[in-house]
């Protein structure tokens, strides 16, 4: 288990009183009570998408308005109580892992779409609206919200802002930060601040940019103004199978070098191809070492033009097979395996850890070779699936959670992969966030002074370190948390 700061004895001793005070602040409604404190009912909140770590919180509040969030934060600030913001709890890095003395602020009841404005191409939504919920709301009018993390059915826009979530299509459309206009931010003091708005590039410091991806360290976002885009006329995918990962990497380079930026460019290695094929029967060639899924957009004629060029480029790299979807249905079939990749790996292994480092794409062959060597060394299988255009890797390390030694090895293997990512010029996390999972690896990427500087910026927003503490920054070297413990 990862180390968490000691609970504050004063807070633990006042549990009853705190719960009662919170009940006055968050009344609840038709969906149920506003405060959860019974141990059995706290169970669903003790972990998130990184289920290896568990810790029940002091209490959970489920506010239905920005005012209630502000009231809870004001109270917690006045009483020195730590808070953990939570959306759908899909974080893969433990971003919503509670602390024993913390109040979890769950935003799932703030799930209203407040406004859609097609002339200005924006939507104003509460933080608990799901990512896909935005697209579903505007799809009938031909619009969509671009970032599309794999968890988009469940994950919430407030969490997307906090993690700066990406997805398979960010090579063309960018990540969350590139698709935001404004947020309503509640500070730890309970002040409600509007950042950005309905316009681009507000003058002054780029607070919106700093908040995006800040993992709940600086405040809680309760309302979000996102840009919505008109969907392209259509899209189609092709599948290219290669004899080696190195040559597939060269094909990726050649595609980008040709001036074509596909809307998606996904890479799967042999173990992943096999797992996905067994699961989804997508028709992936089982003799391939690497597979690219390439998607283009536009009219049917534009798709044909781009796919012809892509086919011609891939053909230069001695492919095992090239398959261009002729219809939308065939595209869906090509994507079926990729979209089910995590589930497919889950079927062949009782548990897996999903890593998320990014590397310069030129380092791909070297990094995949090293991951293969580590896999043999640790005796744990790994399947690689990732966004090839932007170098964001997702190695899935398979292990058995019932075997503590297996879990320990998986964690060490994962850490070695991330260290390798940094060593070749990349970073620890491309889109999942640091959370608790990668917290203690931050020293690999940043110097002590750089971490101190980042902590001081957090301190400017949250001087008492009450907001999602014990995440992002190593506990060592952190006077704020040591003092609090």
């Amino acid at each position, binding site marked *: 288990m990862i180390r968490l700061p000691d609970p504050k004895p004063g807070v633990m001793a006042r549990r009853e009183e705190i719960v009662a005070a919170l009940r006055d602040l968050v009344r609840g409604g038709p969906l149920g009570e506003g405060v959860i404190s019974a141990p059995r009912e706290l169970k669903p909140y003790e972990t998130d998408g990184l289920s290896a770590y568990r810790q029940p919180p002091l209490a959970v509040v489920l506010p239905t308005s920005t005012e209630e969030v502000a009231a809870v934060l004001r109270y917690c600030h006045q009483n020195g109580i730590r808070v953990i913001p939570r959306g759908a709890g899909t974080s893969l890095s433990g971003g919503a892992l509670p602390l024993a003395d913390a109040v979890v602020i769950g935003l799932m009841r703030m799930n209203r779409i407040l406004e859609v404005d097609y002339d*200005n191409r924006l939507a104003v939504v509460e933080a608990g609206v799901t990512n896909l919920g935005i697209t579903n709301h505007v799809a009938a009018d031909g619009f969509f919200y671009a970032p599309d993390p794999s968890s988009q059915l469940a994950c919430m826009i407030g969490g997307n802002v906090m993690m700066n979530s990406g997805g398979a299509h960010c090579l063309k459309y960018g990540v969350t930060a590139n698709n935001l206009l404004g947020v309503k931010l509640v500070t730890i003091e309970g002040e409600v601040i509007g*950042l950005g708005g309905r316009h681009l590039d507000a003058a002054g410091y780029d607070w919106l940019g*700093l908040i995006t991806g800040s993992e709940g360290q600086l405040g809680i976002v309760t309302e979000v103004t996102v840009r919505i885009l008109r969907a392209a006329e259509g899209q189609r995918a092709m599948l290219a199978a290669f004899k080696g990962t190195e040559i597939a990497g060269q094909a990726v380079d050649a595609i980008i070098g040709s001036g074509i*930026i596909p809307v998606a460019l996904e890479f799967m290695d042999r173990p992943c191809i096999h797992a996905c094929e067994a699961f989804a029967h997508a028709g992936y060639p089982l003799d391939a070492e690497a597979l690219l899924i390439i998607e283009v957009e536009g009219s049917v004629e534009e798709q044909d033009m781009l796919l012809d060029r892509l086919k011609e480029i891939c053909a230069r790299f001695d492919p095992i097979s090239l398959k261009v979807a002729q219809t939308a249905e065939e595209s869906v079939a090509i994507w079926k395996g990729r979209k089910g990749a995590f589930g497919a790996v889950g079927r062949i292994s009782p548990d897996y850890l999903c890593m998320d480092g990014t590397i*310069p794409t030129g380092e791909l062959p070297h990094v995949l070779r090293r991951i293969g060597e580590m896999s043999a060394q640790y005796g744990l299988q790994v399947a690689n699936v990732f966004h090839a255009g932007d170098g964001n890797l997702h190695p899935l390390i398979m292990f058995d959670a019932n075997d503590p030694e297996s879990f320990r090895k998986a964690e060490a293997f994962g850490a070695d992969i991330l260290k390798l990512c940094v060593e070749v010029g990349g970073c620890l996390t*491309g889109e999942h966030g640091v959370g608790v999972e990668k917290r203690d690896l931050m020293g690999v990427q940043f110097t002590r002074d750089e971490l101190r500087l*980042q902590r001081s910026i957090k301190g400017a927003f949250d001087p008492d370190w009450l907001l999602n503490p014990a995440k992002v920054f190593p506990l060592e070297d952190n006077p704020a948390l040591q003092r609090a413990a």
Partner: protein
Amino acid sequence: MNGEVLAPAREEDLAAAIAAAHAAGEPLAIEGNGTKRALLRPVQAARTLSTRALSGITLYHPQELILSARAGTPLPEIEAALAERGQHLIAEPPTLAALFGVAPPGAPTPGIRPPTLGGLVATNLSGPRRITGGAMRDHVMGIRAVTGTGEVFRSGGRVLKNVTGLDLAKLLTGAHGTLGVITEVTLKVLPAPAASGTLALRVASLEAGVRALSAGLGSSYGVSGAALLPQGTQVGAEGRPGPLALLRIEDFSESVAYRLGRLREDLAALGEVSVVEQEESRALWAAVREAAPLGAADEEAVWRVSVQPTAGPGVVAAAGLGKALLDWGGGLVWLAGPATPETHAKVVAAAAAAGGSFTLFRAPEPLRAAVAVLPEEPAALAAIGARVKTVLDPKGILNPGRMRAGS
């Protein structure tokens, strides 16, 4: 320019210079080549620290869509390196050399230094492609910078997707050198489109023009520029009378031809339509990027107002100035008029009424020293901002007075 100019050629020397200034409590004006000195407020500092000697591209991997360069690298050097590999800067940043009076419109003048990469990032200025391609700050993947105490730090990196730690690169982008001195920048770049074409619609009013721009931006055709030239403004020597709504498509030539055709059909009812192709289209957008159609006279003040696109025409009307130019689908409103506190107050009120943001972009020194050139921040945010400033520049020696009086 502010007094003596320090221009160290190495990052450690620049850091040492800042550390010494910090120790002495001596303010520094921070600049690259000083092309945007007339932007925002005049800096109160006896000495200038320039990044211009920290120059050169340090890494360029076209296949990885990544370019790193030291802060003082001249923009034309970067653009030339990118062009050689068929790539470009996504945000289409303006030089604004003519607007700031550091170079006449057109060809560069010998002896006049071009804008630097660091200056561009510190001011977060983006051109017409911002509306769909993102702002300058969206393409800053990483920075190296020096704090106001002389401490060197990095944020971000040299990869396209990175959420590791707090994004201090975003904080410094657009901070006008007040939170740190940027020494090196890593940018995301993209293939330059093979072709450019523009649909020009003569429309009855600014409101009708923004409706046309909204229809274009709300189409499936990937419009990459949407500007509106009001009545009386002219573009190019031959002169095109406005109001004129402009919608640009950039892509492979087959796509540009196809999409312009479809757009033309879809928008035919909204105004009289003509098509501007290739070089003429590129020249047109270069002019929009530099705010040339605004036609600001030397003695006039220039404002840049950002609002939701449909509010753009209302801002023009409320400001009541003769000169305007709308970009970003109507959401970026350039205004020019008399450099008086009264005119400024009108523009500020117009921006506030539209729920937007303003910048007094250029003005004679007495005006820009006397009024708030940027909107006030709410008290809670200003308090956080003051604490952030204390972390990064505790003695307030970096560009004091640049963004706000007394800070």
